[in-house]
């Protein structure tokens, strides 16, 4: 087993990126994800990685450079938050449409206005339907583990889609917690060598990326993307199984906490799930059957599996980190019975 260290979430991500050693990283700093690339940039400067680091003038350019590098045939990574992801939005669709397995960490932060550097999920939710796989993480350990697995999932032949690993800004990105790292060799072996598909740098077999596709063929390519998304669910489970062998940590499509006989189920993403587990324990101690479901794979959303897991509950409450105006009606709010 690897080392156990006390680190921030951002440090954990930067360390995962060092171990993954991608060919190209293009990034633009934004709070609270800045520290990821700041730490990674020092790995580049100190020769700890072979990565070509491209410092660009905006997140739109960062994602554009990632797309170019990925199409060229490289393993490509980046990180961003909030407005940064919003500025990437146009290019997110290009990456998924061209089936480029770019892997990005999203350190969740609220979208302006009013400006707030802390973490709600409006950024990630806004990118929900961009054709990217989304893995959400409760803590630094999960973010680290998810990022390493995301490489395998995104690059899998049945998938070939970009993937985003989400973790909460500040609560996780800047808080120090104890976690376990895998050794460099284990990560290297686990992710394997990147096998590019139709790389632009293969000059003997020239290809065109991004041609005009009109209605006669457009839906054929969208169908391919849809099928790849459907495939992703099985691949996520398969990769998780392999990951458990090297790490001893098991992952599924979501985590169930005391959900088996729960009459009241809470569905919550990321760090708030950690707090919720304490609340569940507290209510269980009082004899109230409360349980928790924490989605991990959010895109593609495992509808059937989630529905099955929640089928025993009489009441289901979904907690959103952040409030999307008018999406949640007053009728949907509920209260736990006071013991």
């Amino acid at each position, binding site marked *: 087993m690897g080392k156990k260290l006390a680190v921030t979430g951002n440090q954990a991500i930067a360390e995962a990126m060092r171990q993954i050693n991608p060919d190209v990283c293009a990034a633009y700093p934004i709070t609270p994800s800045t520290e990821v690339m700041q730490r990674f940039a020092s790995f580049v400067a100190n020769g700890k990685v072979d990565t070509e680091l491209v410092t660009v003038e905006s997140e739109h350019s960062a994602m554009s450079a990632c797309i170019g590098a990925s199409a060229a045939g490289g393993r490509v990574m980046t990180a961003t938050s909030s407005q940064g992801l919003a500025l990437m939005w146009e290019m997110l669709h290009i990456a998924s449409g061209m*089936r480029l397995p770019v892997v990005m960490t999203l350190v969740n932060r609220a979208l302006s206005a009013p400006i707030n550097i802390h973490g709600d999920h409006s950024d990630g939710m806004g990118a929900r339907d961009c054709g990217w796989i989304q893995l959400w993480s409760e803590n630094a350990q999960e973010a680290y583990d998810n990022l390493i697995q995301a490489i395998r999932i995104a690059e899998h032949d049945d998938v070939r889609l970009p993937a985003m690993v989400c973790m909460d800004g500040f609560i996780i990105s800047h808080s120090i917690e104890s976690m376990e790292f895998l050794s460099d060799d284990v990560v290297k072996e686990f992710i394997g060598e990147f096998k590019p*598909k*139709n790389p632009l740098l293969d000059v003997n077999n020239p290809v*065109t*990326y991004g*041609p005009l596709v009109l209605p006669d063929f457009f839906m054929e*390519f969208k169908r*391919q993307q849809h*099928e790849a998304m459907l495939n992703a669910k099985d691949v996520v489970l398969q990769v998780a199984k392999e990951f458990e062998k090297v790490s001893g940590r098991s992952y599924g499509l979501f985590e169930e906490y005391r959900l088996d006989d729960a009459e009241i189920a809470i569905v919550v993403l990321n760090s708030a799930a950690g707090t919720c587990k304490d609340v569940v324990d507290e209510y269980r101690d009082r004899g109230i059957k409360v349980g928790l479901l924490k989605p991990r794979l959010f895109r593609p959303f495992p509808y059937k599996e989630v529905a099955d897991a929640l089928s025993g509950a009489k009441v289901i409450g979904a907690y959103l980190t952040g409030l999307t105006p008018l999406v949640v009606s007053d009728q949907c709010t509920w209260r736990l019975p006071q013991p």
Partner: protein
Amino acid sequence: MKGWRELEIGAITEAGSADSYNTGSWRAFRPRWIEENCIQCLFCWIYCPDSAITVKDGKRGEFDYNHCKGCGICAMECPGKKGKKAIVMEEEGK
């Protein structure tokens, strides 16, 4: 026609250019070359945004109507001979 199962993912296709497509089909005005007024200055060849002026052995030839979109830049730039243009724009279909 190929279905989604047969097509290469991501719409990645063979390398090429618009050379193999007829992109001149939506032209509303058509340039006509009047050879007797042409001084072979090749301004039309320089200015054409669609490389639709064919040149052989340093002399211009006929328009490549598969790629000419009828923008009229060549006709505008053409100095002609003794006040007479070597390129004139005419409405398509007339």
